[in-house]
Every structure is written in C-alpha cells, then in structure tokens.
C-alpha cells in the first residue's frame, strides 16, 4: 500500500482524544466539568461528522510520510540533546550535524557556523537577558 488516508487517521486520533477527554470530565464535580464536558461532546460530534462527510479527504504518499517522520525524529533528537547536554551546547551540536548533512559543508565550516549559533544564543539568553534556567532545571514528572 503506497498511499494512506492520513486525514481520516488524524481525525480518528482527535475523536479518540475527545472521547477520553469526555470520559475524564465525567469524573469531576458539576462545577469543574461545566464547560469541559459540553466542549468535548461538541468535539466528538464534529469529529464524527467530519469522518462521515462525503468530501474527499487528503491521501498521503508513503514517501511524504517517511519525510515527515524523519523531520519529527530530527526535532526529537534535538530535544534529547537539550535534555542530555543542555540547551546551549545542544544547539551547537544540532546545528553542526544538520549543516553537515544538509548543506554539504565541510567539517570546519559547519563547526564554525554551529559555534557562532551556540555563542549567539548563549550570549543573548544568558548574558544579555540574564536568564539562567539551569539554576532551577526541572524535568517532567
């Protein structure tokens, strides 16, 4: 199968999300669910209407899906770099790897560009704006 109906799949995901939200809302007291409950209900109805509509939905080629997944993993890789080596160094490493792969620059040019980007970001955020988030670094929990 070289084509996937991505739009329908996306709407089904939203429908599942809305149903979970609706069921979650039922657990709250009447005041706390005053708006979340009807809003999620409207969302469910609209998602069902969108799935049932006769309008042709967008069909994606497998190649474009692969490219999208590559892009998502690329950003995920950057997020992981920030988690492991910190945002300033992570930005430098990410820029270097990206430019080496995409721009076909030699290592020296990529290194110089990425150091410039990392220093620029470091200078702007840490020195000029004096934001030092490392002092209260908190992971998701």
């Amino acid at each position, binding site marked *: 199968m070289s084509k996937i109906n991505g739009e329908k799949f*996306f709407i089904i995901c939203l429908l599942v999300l*809305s149903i979970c939200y609706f069921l979650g809302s039922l657990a709250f007291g009447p*005041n706390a669910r005053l708006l979340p409950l009807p809003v999620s209900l409207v969302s469910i109805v609209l998602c069902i209407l969108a799935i049932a*509509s006769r309008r042709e939905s967008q069909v994606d080629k497998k190649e474009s899906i692969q490219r*999208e997944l590559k*892009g998502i993993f690329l950003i995920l890789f*950057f997020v992981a770099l920030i*988690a492991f080596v910190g945002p300033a160094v992570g930005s430098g490493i990410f820029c270097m790897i990206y430019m080496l792969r995409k721009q076909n620059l030699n290592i020296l040019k990529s290194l110089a560009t990425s150091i410039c980007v990392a220093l620029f*970001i470091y200078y702007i955020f840490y020195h000029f704006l004096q*934001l030092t988030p490392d002092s209260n670094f908190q992971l998701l929990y």
Partner: protein
Amino acid sequence: MDIIDAALSSLNLLLTYDVMIMLCIGVIYGLCVGLMPGLGGIVAIALLLPFTIGFGVIPTLGLLLGAHIATIWGGSVTSILFNVPGAAKSLALVFDGHPMTRNGQASRALGASAMAALLGGIIGAIFLALSIPLVRPIMLSIGPSEYLILALWGLSIIATFSDGSMIKGGIATCLGMMAAYVGMDPITGTPRFWMDSIYLLDGIYFPVAMIGLFAISEMLKLYVKQTSFVERVEGEETSTLLSGCMDAFKHWWLVIRSSLLGLWIGVLPGIGASVGGIAAYAQAVQTSKNPEKFGKGAVEGVIAPDATLGANEGGGLLPTLAFGIPGGESMAILLVAFLSMGIVPGPQMLTTDLDLVFAMVWIIVFANIFTAIIGLAISPKLSKLPGLNPNIMIPIVLSVCLFGAYVTRGYFADVILAFLFGVIGYYMDKYKFSRANFVIGMVLAEMIERNLHISLGLHGNYFIFTQPVSIFLLFLLFLTTGLSLKRKNSKKEQLSV
C-alpha cells in the same frame, strides 16, 4: 489639578536629556527581546527591574514603558515574518500578517504594522486624556456577565478562519478550549487532566504552546517541503514600507475604531491584550466590505490588531494606577515596579497625582514614536529574513525557539510540550484545521469559564436576561455575527454565479 495643566507640566518633566536616553535604551532593548519567540513584555520588564534602582522616577518609567511598548511591536514582527507570535498579544497579527509576507508584501505589512501601532498609541493617549473623568463609572458598570459576552464575541470570528470547512474550524476551536482546561480549575481547585504530572497542574503554558503550534510546525513543514521559509505566491518582495505606512492612513477610520477598542479593553481590568487583538480583528472582519479577503493577506488584518495593541497600553495604565488592579500580565509587573518607586495606586492618581499619570501617557506616546522610527529603519533588513535558505533557517530558528521555550521558565517539560504542539500544529496545518481557531479557543476558554462561573454565582441561571448591559452586548454580538455571515454567504453566491 486641571487636566490641561497636568498634561503640559508632565510633558515638561519628560523633555529632558536623561529621560530620552533611558527611553531609547528601553525601546532598543524591548525590540531585541520582542524578536525572541516566547519572551514577551513580562520577561522584558521583569529583567529590567533590578536596573531601575537609583534612577529618578520619570527616567525609570521611560526605561520600563519604552521596553514594554517596543516588545509588543517586536512580537508583531515575528508574527508577520515567521508566523510565530512573539507573545500572546501579537497572535492576531499571524492571521493576515504572515499571508502578506507569503504574497511578497512583508515590507508593506511591517510598515502598516509600525504606523498603525504609532497611530494607535497616539490616538489612545489622546482619548485616554479626554476620557479620564468618564472612566470610573464605566469601569464599575462592566461585570462578569459582560466580560463573558465580550469573550463570546471574540469566539464568533472562528467562522472567518474556517476556510472551506466549518466542521474542521469547530473541531480546532474545541481542541483549543480543551487544551486550556488542562490543569487546576481556577474556581473549584479541581485538578483536571493532569495525568499525575505536577507540571500539568499549572496548565499548558500559552507562549510555549504557541512556539510549538506555529514556529516548530513551520520548521517541520519547511523540512518536509524543502522550499524557502516563505513560499512567495507572486515571486519576490514587491512592496515598500511607504505603501504600508500609507495604508494605515488610508484606513484611518479602522485605526480610530481599533484604537478606541484597544483603549477600552485596556481600561477594563482582566481582559488582556491578547483578547483585545482578536476582538480588533473580529471587528475589522465584521465591518469590512470584503471580509473574504481576511486570512489571505488583507492589510486591514494587520492594521486593526496593531492599532489596538498600541492604544491598549495607555488604557491598561488606568485600572493599574487608579485601583491597583493590573489591566494585564505586563501591567502586574509594572505595578510591582511602581510600588518599588514609591508610586502608590489609588483614586488620588486621577486627582492630585494626575501629572504622573500624564507623564506615563506621554512616555507611551514617545515610546511609540521611537519604536516606529527604529522599527521602520530596520524593517528593510528584517523583511529579507524569510527568504533565506531553509537549511540555514531550520537549525537556527529551531534553536532559538526550543531555547526560548526552555529558558522562559526553566522547565525542560516546556521543551517537550513545544515539540508536541509542533507536531500537532504541523498536522493541523496539513489537513486544514485552522491553528488560528485553536489558539482563539485556548485564549478565550479561561475567560469564558471564569466569568460564566462568577455570573452564575452572582445572578443565577438566567443571568444574561437580568443584566441590561449584557442584553445590549448580546444583541450586538448576534447582529455583528449575523451580518458578517450574511455578507459572507452573499459573496459566495456572487462568486458561484
């Protein structure tokens, strides 16, 4: 004290060498901060607070208010050029500002934006001075049920962005509202959809969601398509700054209307400029002869929100100074600064200390002028940025955005959230689910919920029908929405014929 005397004596206080220097420093600093996605006026002012000790009151006010005004325009620039709202306030600029850039009219959009903000600031200041005696009774007559209807009015523009499918537009709005209800319920204190994460108890942080929804998703799109950041529909940049500036004068009536709207939204505490921008956009669409052009690069869609934002700050000063109730988030930080400078808010600010209020109004006018001059000077360079090679843009913009998401609060979870919203935003854009509707839903959801609860508690289930101002506003809401939809349908019929 006589109003004219107060206005003149405060102008005299302002026209000194040190005040002007501090104002310039504040404006340049504010522009730098405003151009960084996610860092809004609150960060800019909060970072300046330690530097305000030891200076006089007026120079310090010049520094703080100058930075605050310039940050707002900086946020408009990123909305127009990169589809990334620099702050929640600049959200409405995304709707037509970025399509203008895509159409090769970035310079025109920047010119119109700077000039509309300048005119809005000046008009807002003039009307603020004239309306000071009227303000107090009007401020007190607007209650939660009226705020609720104002929020619903903001929600009524989703039809404008539901290009092609109202169902998809509705889904996007519901999703935005659902995202806004994550976290602690402000009324009952019930934790909602927090998935046992303390981070989510605070709710979804709005600037981080916007960075993901607009900036990261755009970078993902750029990576997939491998075209330049701006897919220019009509070739290269074709417009000029001057044409944009002239547009602001051509639509003078829209500028005046939007400025007055911004002023009054600023005066009413608790609404916030992000709602103001959306409301200004809504009135521009509903009163336009060509509403179908909105969302596709209509210059009116840039002029209206920027004029509102320009005027909003002057209005926001009134409740902050007269009642100690901040008109918005930035005003809350400013209030802290005022207190540290010995400025004590209270009704005396509108009577005996009127010269200080006017000094601030003048500072806002001068800050708008400096911002417009500096902004117009750097705009030709800025307008070339979106045409850069995508392989250079992607790593740099991603670095700045993820760093911006991280650094604002220092939570790594914000980076993850920005990434998730980036993926959601990409697929929403791909399958034509309006991201604008999502954000409008997210912005207005909290205001709708809070005011609905308060109205029900105060006036019972039929509160709308017991409040005369609410009935009037509700009538206006139905009238403007009905007329707008009717006009849209008749245009559609004309096109099909």
